[in-house]
């Protein structure tokens, strides 16, 4: 009881501190000038109507390359930690007929949703990362339904590497044409597309497609390693 009262008092004191600290922050004013700059120039400089996407892929495209690399390292790390000789899946109970048939029917639709999400990254919320995750869930669904299913590593690993290389290649072409890495030559020099339609925003859709494929294949690879490893742990 005493403990509980002490905890409540403690929470109240902390809450008071935080409230006091936040009360001094002026809301609604620009603290950072760079944010204002992005919002004012995003349309003519990148052609995207989704400012968040434009910042992620265009202004901060180099950082996003870093993020993709982090994911790649995570995937490689999982593979390195969980690498054993060829392991079988440990599932014992097969999915029911309804689940199996349902996942077969849903597979194309979920892949289409994923592709829709990452191709419309510059027009709607979403983009490469959620789109790739959606595509990975399609494979996870098949994994859950069929106990003997395994992905084809010979197809997925080259695809993953290829998409990583093409991201860098897009950046290098920008370096060659415009003088800095990830220069958006499609929008700034060719001026292809109209703002708000699908074909716009320079290379943002291209890079998001690359990221989508990369994230999808990488997450599928991680799922595959994790599911196969479980047999070793349980004995």
């Amino acid at each position, binding site marked *: 009881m005493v403990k509980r009262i002490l905890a409540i008092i403690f929470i109240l004191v902390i809450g008071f501190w935080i409230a006091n600290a936040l009360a001094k922050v002026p809301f609604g004013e620009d603290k950072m000038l760079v944010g204002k700059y992005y919002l004012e120039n995003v349309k003519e400089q990148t052609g995207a109507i989704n400012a968040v996407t434009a910042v992620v892929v265009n202004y901060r495209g180099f950082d996003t390359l870093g993020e993709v690399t982090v994911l790649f390292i995570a995937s490689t790390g999982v593979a390195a930690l969980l690498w054993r000789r060829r392991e079988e899946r*440990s*599932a*014992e*109970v*097969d*999915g029911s007929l309804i*689940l199996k048939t349902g996942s077969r029917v849903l597979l194309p639709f*979920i892949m289409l*949703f994923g592709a829709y*999400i990452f191709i*419309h990254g510059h*027009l*709607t*919320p*979403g983009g490469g990362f*959620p789109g790739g*995750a*959606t595509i990975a*869930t399609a494979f*996870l*669904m098949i994994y*859950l*339904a069929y*106990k003997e299913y395994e992905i084809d590593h010979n197809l997925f690993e080259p695809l993953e590497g290829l998409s990583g290389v093409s991201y860098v290649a897009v950046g290098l072409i920008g370096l060659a044409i415009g003088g800095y890495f990830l220069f958006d030559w499609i929008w700034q020099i060719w001026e292809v597309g109209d703002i708000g339609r699908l074909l716009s925003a320079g290379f943002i859709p291209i890079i998001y497609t690359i990221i989508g494929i990369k994230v999808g294949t990488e997450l599928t690879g991680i799922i595959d390693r994790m*599911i196969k490893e*479980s047999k070793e742990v349980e004995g």
Partner: protein
Amino acid sequence: MTIIEVSLVLIAIATVLSMYRVFRGPTTVDRIIAIDIMTTITTGLMVLFALYYKRAIFLDVALVYAVLAFLGVIAFARYLEGGL
């Protein structure tokens, strides 16, 4: 208050009521059923928000959420029956 606002309040009440089953249990499956229902309710809520704030792009969020919620429940179910 428009009818849509009343509906939003009703959905909020539904979520809170399902929360009772999440806390109460008594078995794991009970909690997962409650969470399944809550995710369905949340998908409906997102679609309703798209109307309320007049932003059709919220529908994309609802779509992805529906996919992920379905996968989450299936994963739990297969884990419970030893199919993972």
